[in-house]
């Protein structure tokens, strides 16, 4: 498969996952903000913004504008509209590689989200777009799995999705557990809903909301699709499949990185992790970044002399 095509599929998937993550977080946050709170709404917005749009701007949040910024701001690099446009732009570059159903679905969603031309203050409109994206993303994943051959390209899509998900989960957990010190039960519900995990958590651990159990569930639960452990396992599976299919002989570094990353979640207990949670999460994010760079170097933009050696 052409390197450029693999790269576009990977980024299409990453942008889509990013939009999906933002949609879940915003739906949960907006639900929280409607309640009378012990603490100010500013703080909840701050938490949402800092987990979705990292950077110096997240410090001073105007709650009136926060929703607009995160949903429809044409300038902001992190808004949902921006992410959906990014996904579509990448898909457009490789239209002959994805199924027509995928393209149609993504294209429709793009027009539905960008069509209304949202203005600041139109909360109802913004939340409509959020819902469209959340529902649309489940459908897009289903269409992708059902209509595309599960070959190399599909594995790059999987890789993009799960590397993005693992990183987003870590940022979100950091915002709830480390940055925000006075989360209450409603906040914990918010966190679980942000990860589409409330029902699954209740099934496994009852509705008793204990922070360490929540952390255990979202970090280490191998069976739950929105856990860090699950995401890393899927990344490992995708990377192994790609290296088998592409017959590449230069994958030692990638194997080392993904192996180490998985061991960080496979052989620990939550009590050990909780002691230095911030550092632990930062470590996973850092290593995801390294892995991204290694994949890029081996499959996408390898130096020519290296290619001739092997």
């Amino acid at each position, binding site marked *: *498969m*052409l*390197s*450029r095509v*693999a790269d576009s599929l990977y980024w299409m998937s990453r942008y889509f996952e990013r939009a999906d993550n933002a949609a879940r977080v915003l739906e949960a946050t907006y639900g929280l903000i409607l309640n009378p709170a012990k603490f100010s709404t500013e703080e909840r917005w701050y938490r949402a913004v800092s987990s979705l749009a990292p950077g110096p701007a997240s410090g001073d949040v105007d709650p009136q504008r926060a929703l607009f910024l995160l949903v429809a701001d044409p300038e902001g690099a992190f808004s949902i509209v921006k992410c959906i446009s990014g996904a579509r732009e990448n898909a*457009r*570059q490789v*239209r*002959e590689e994805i199924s*027509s159903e995928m*393209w149609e679905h993504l294209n429709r969603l793009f027009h539905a989200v960008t069509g209304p031309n949202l203005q600041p203050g139109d909360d109802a409109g913004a939340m409509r777009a959020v819902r469209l994206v959340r529902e649309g993303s489940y459908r897009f994943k289903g269409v992708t799995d059902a209509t595309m051959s599960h070959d*190399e390209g599909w594995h790059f899509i999987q890789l993009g999705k799960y590397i993005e998900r693992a990183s987003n989960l870590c940022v979100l957990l950091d915002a709830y557990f480390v940055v925000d010190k006075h989360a209450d039960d409603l906040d914990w519900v918010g966190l679980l809903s942000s990860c589409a995990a409330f029902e699954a958590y209740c099934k496994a651990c009852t509705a008793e909301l204990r922070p360490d159990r929540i952390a255990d569930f979202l970090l280490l639960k191998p069976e739950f699709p929105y856990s860090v452990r699950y995401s890393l396992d899927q990344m490992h599976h995708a990377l192994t499949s*790609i290296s088998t299919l*592409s*017959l*590449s002989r230069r994958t030692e570094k990638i194997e080392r990185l993904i192996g180490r990353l998985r061991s960080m979640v496979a052989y620990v207990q939550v009590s050990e992790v909780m002691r230095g949670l911030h550092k632990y999460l930062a470590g996973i994010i850092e290593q995801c970044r390294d892995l991204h760079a290694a994949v890029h170097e081996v*499959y*996408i933009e*390898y130096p*020519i002399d290296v*290619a*001739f050696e*092997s």
Partner: protein
Amino acid sequence: MRYPCGDRAPTMIIETSAASAGGAEGLRHYFLNGAYDEMFRSLDHPRKQYRPLHNLLLNLGPDELRRSKHEADQSFFNQGITFTVYGGDKGTERIFPHDLLPRIITAAEWEKIERGLTQRITALNLFLRDVYHEAKIIADGVVPGSIIYTCKHYRREMRGIKVPRDVYVTVVGTDLIRNPEGNFVVLEDNLRVPSGVSYMLTSRKVMKQIFPGLFQKCRVRPIEQYSQALLSTLRSLAPEGRPEPTVVLLTPGAYNSAYFEHTYLARQMGIELVEGRDLVVHDNIVYMRTTFGLQRVDVIYRRIDDDYLDPLVFESGSALGAVGLFNAYRAGNVAFANALGTGVADDKAIYAYVPQIIRYYLDEDPILENVETLLLSDPSQRAHVCERLDQYVVKAVGESGGYGMLIGPHSTEEERIQFRQRIQAQPRNYIAQPVINLSTAPCFVDGTIEPRHVDLRPYVLYGEKIVIVPGGLTRVALRKGSLVVNSSQGGGSKDTWVLQN
């Protein structure tokens, strides 16, 4: 043969023999305007090949036609058969305007077109080989060197380069028109990167769904083998010692107006669609970057103009091609289709010499005539034309797509003054042709059937041998009275049916 009930199969036109009341309505507004009409000898006498269609039109009401038209448009839209319109703040995707009624060509007519095109392309290819090697035709005084060497698309870099099989023009789309006497004549040779073949292929698919019975009754020759023919033509150009050559299609990218066609053809042929940034040249060998390393490329079906192929040799600012492609080509390690520099043979001033070119290389008379062409570099012809600009079509020699053109009878005094100045400033850059009344064909426009002017672009493939699939793109000037068929200027297309004997 029986057809399912109308309500249940809306895409299919029901062909019956009993005339319904609404039927003849559609043809009531038809008229003949002095041009050769494809369907009617006179309004009472449809030509033989059009009789099945004529019968069908007598029996169909406007509503049925409208419904079919809608179904056809829907089908184009769902398949994503679009082209990009530039202008405004961003390019938008539109479906290619398509007319519902087929254009029909008899076996005898096609036989002549096929022979004529084969002869013409053979001669033009020999001309290109000669121009870039010994240039005997200049030495023998048949075509003046001053015209060849001043061509915008003449490529000095191609001098002395041996191209695979001596084939310069692999894919050709020649524009034919039918004059009022009913003869097909050549209007333009497109020897660089002709486009439109995807519309020919996709519109056939739609027409078969809409007119299945008529299609079968007419005994239309198939064109679906085009993609296989193109692939084997391209493979035949591969460098020696490459029995399983890798063929790729090089596109400028997703923002190009013909991007749909590029993805379509790549998919139909099962070859990679690459962009310049996917290609790497090392030791004069071309590779593409894949996830499993560099893979050698042998034949490049390039849909990029010469100027943008290699920044080392041509436009240095171009990011569409790849550095070093031309050297690899010169070394014979990769083939381009078409070769570089073919534009010298479709320059509109060279066009005037094609009859002589055919006689010179083949010692035969041209089977397909040219349109009379005046070279404005010639002082007396220039003076003649400049006084009568309202009677001529003036064209810039190196342009295509209907750009840089003056249609005398439809022009304003101001435009004529402007063109006169341009001609005086750069006479070599212009030619003039008498206004030709292109033939008309019935089109379904705004609920009625009216005549519109059409041309015909068959596609010629030249590798081991010359292959012409029986068909082509019939382009339609959809505006009433207009003679301009280019899609960028409000033209559309029709399916073209070449009949079996």
